[in-house]
């Protein structure tokens, strides 16, 4: 079975632009979580979705939004990009919101 997939792998944007990151969970998994990881730190929780509903939100500004589609794939949107948004964005899927999570390879976002 395929693991969690994310696209794109790398992305370079300039300040003020908008970005959309995509995630496809493991087949059968209904929960998707998004994390931001900067160098030397652990993943920081952004959102969790289960059955297309938001189940949790981390301490990120309203510029960050997400949604989950009927096929359980998910998008993370970031508006008005700042230099500080440069990071590795990880998507993790799980069967429910309480099970172990399996991470995708991540999207490396660079904001110039």
């Amino acid at each position, binding site marked *: 079975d395929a693991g969690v997939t994310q696209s794109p792998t790398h992305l370079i944007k300039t300040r003020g632009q908008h970005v959309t990151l995509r995630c496809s969970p493991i087949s059968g998994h209904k929960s998707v979580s998004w*994390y931001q990881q900067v160098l030397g730190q*652990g993943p920081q929780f952004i959102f969790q979705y289960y059955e297309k509903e938001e*189940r*949790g939100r981390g301490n990120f500004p309203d510029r960050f939004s997400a949604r989950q589609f009927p096929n359980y794939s998910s998008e993370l949107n970031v508006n008005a990009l700042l230099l500080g948004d440069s990071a590795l964005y*990880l998507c993790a899927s799980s069967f429910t919101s309480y099970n172990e999570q399996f*991470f995708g390879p991540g999207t490396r976002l660079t904001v110039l």
Partner: protein
Amino acid sequence: QQPVQSPQAVILREGEDAVINCSSSKALYSVHWYRQKHGEAPIFLMILLKGGEQKGHDKISASFNEKKQQSSLYLTASQLSYSGTYFCGPKGDDKIIFGKGTRLHILP
């Protein structure tokens, strides 16, 4: 709110043992443990669900003391492949909050 992991870093020789501790200030439902190698995504190691629960996988085991809001990861007879950064992720009633990680380097 972020859990505290100790030590921050450790260097071992192959075959030595290590313990990584994780302490949280909030009530926990479960604790997740992950290992991340440089440039790669975190890999799930184990999840502990019950107070006092212990689990083991190969030569890696963990304990979870729900009352003390603490968890420890035990690596026995470490192998070169164990090198990486270990993260604990305590989970309360909603999200997982990861610690800053413990960097483990195994020398041959």
